[in-house]
């Protein structure tokens, strides 16, 4: 199993390790609920070095990325990032990802750990018609996420990058705790916060300095368990649960990511047709009205017939109820529609609710 460069620090802090797509990662430290609430109310530090990083550069990089992704890469200037996807010709997901524009003609793609090899092959295979160089730097990059309302206060004394001026989805390069880093105001929790990337072979001081500086703010180290409950409350998609190569971007309710006017891209024809004619099913958020937790793959029934299964589903530590995402046939997707979830042989009532389940209070 692979370990990140921060592994020894996590072990020292009592992280309970599990295997996650070939990586030995902490699932929890002090407990999912306390970690979750620390991020909502104070701050949390995540090691997300297992994520994949791909560099794309060369004179035709912009055209190339416009071809591979549905969002408009031309809108990015150096120092900006966007949420987007690698789409198949069918308008479904090879993966979802972030694109960072580092310099004109030089971009960083940040992809899911579970897909990083597949994504690199996909990008490299499509590169032959373009003057671009594609490099898989997943092993070289480490990445930490510092999330929560106290994130800026914790990070600012550790870097000369002015963080107060950094807007959401903006980035800057500079030193953090003496380590050369790329800092972006991004995250996967629904809170304010930062992601810090570094290619330093010994980035340990980053972890140590943030933990030390965060102590007086109530910062906790956070495992994959709370990472999942946090992102689900914010209705951020998880590849493999909520989206994959069988779900289109429109079914996944990600129309805001698609910029049809930018010109052609992989899957555009299918998505445009779906956009005009409507989709047959759509992902919706639900809450369970009965006790229990609707977990991934549990059957979803409408009128007694199984129509689908739970994509993501968990207990929401913030709302203190069971929430989840599911694809339902159009006609069953209105807010307030009730259906049933099979919970280990018993049926529990569920109701379609507005999403995101959690929205952070305006600053």
């Amino acid at each position, binding site marked *: 199993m692979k370990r990140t460069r921060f592994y020894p620090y996590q072990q020292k802090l009592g992280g309970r390790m599990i295997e996650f797509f070939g990586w030995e990662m902490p699932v*929890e430290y002090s*407990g*999912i609920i306390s970690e979750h609430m620390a991020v909502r109310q104070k701050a949390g530090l995540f090691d997300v070095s297992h994520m994949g990083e791909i560099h794309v550069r060369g004179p035709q990089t912009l055209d190339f990325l416009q071809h591979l992704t549905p969002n408009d890469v031309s809108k990015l200037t150096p120092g900006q990032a966007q949420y987007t996807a690698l789409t198949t010709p069918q308008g479904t997901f090879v993966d979802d990802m972030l694109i960072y524009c580092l310099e004109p003609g030089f971009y960083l793609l940040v992809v899911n750990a579970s897909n990083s090899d597949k994504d690199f092959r996909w990008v490299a295979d499509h590169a032959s018609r373009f003057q671009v160089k594609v490099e898989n730097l997943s092993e070289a990059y480490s990445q930490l996420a510092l999330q929560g309302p106290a994130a800026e206060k914790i990070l600012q004394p550790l870097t000369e990058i002015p963080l107060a001026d950094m807007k959401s989805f903006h980035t800057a390069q500079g030193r953090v705790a003496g380590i050369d880093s790329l800092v972006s105001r991004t995250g996967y929790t629904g809170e304010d916060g930062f992601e810090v990337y570094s290619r330093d072979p010994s980035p340990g001081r980053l972890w140590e300095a943030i933990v030390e500086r965060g102590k007086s703010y109530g910062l906790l180290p956070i495992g994959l368990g709370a990472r999942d409950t946090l992102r689900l409350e914010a209705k951020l998609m998880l590849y493999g649960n909520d989206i994959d190569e069988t779900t289109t971007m429109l079914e996944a309710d990600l129309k805001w990511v698609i910029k049809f006017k930018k010109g052609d891209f992989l899957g555009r024809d299918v998505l445009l047709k779906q956009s005009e004619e409507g989709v047959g099913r759509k992902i919706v958020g639900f809450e369970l009205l009965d006790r229990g937790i609707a977990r991934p793959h549990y059957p979803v029934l409408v009128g007694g017939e199984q129509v689908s299964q739970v994509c993501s589903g968990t207990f929401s530590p913030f709302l203190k109820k069971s929430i989840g995402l599911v694809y339902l046939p159009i006609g069953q997707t209105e807010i307030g529609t009730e259906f049933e979830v099979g919970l280990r042989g018993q049926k529990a009532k569920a109701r379609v609710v507005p999403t995101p389940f959690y929205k952070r209070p305006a600053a």
Partner: protein
Amino acid sequence: MYPGDYYYTKDHEWVQVKGQEAIVGITDFAQKQLGDVVYVQLPEVGAKLAAHQSIGTVESVKAVSDVFSPVSGEVSAVNAELANAPELLNQDPHGKGWIMKLKLTAPKEAETLMKAGDYERFLEGLDKQT
């Protein structure tokens, strides 16, 4: 850690026998494996249980787990506090986090289960496998 006057099962339940009665719960090892418990499904008072019969489920954020009766008997009480405060199972699994009381069918039956020392060795064995 594990009270010397309790008996333990391989499914990580404990039973404390007091004459014709017994108290049943899950072990500290079980609660640590589950993490934060958020729902506990309890048996009904008056239910007649055979040893190894399922008595309900304990559900944490991470997982759902069946709980089995370590011995046979009739449910005489359940810990109703767990409905409002399931975290008692994490905080005090061998005490305030008890699950049910039983009127025992065969008071000697518990003696076939593991004692504290045996259970601790059993856990060490599990640890080596992982």
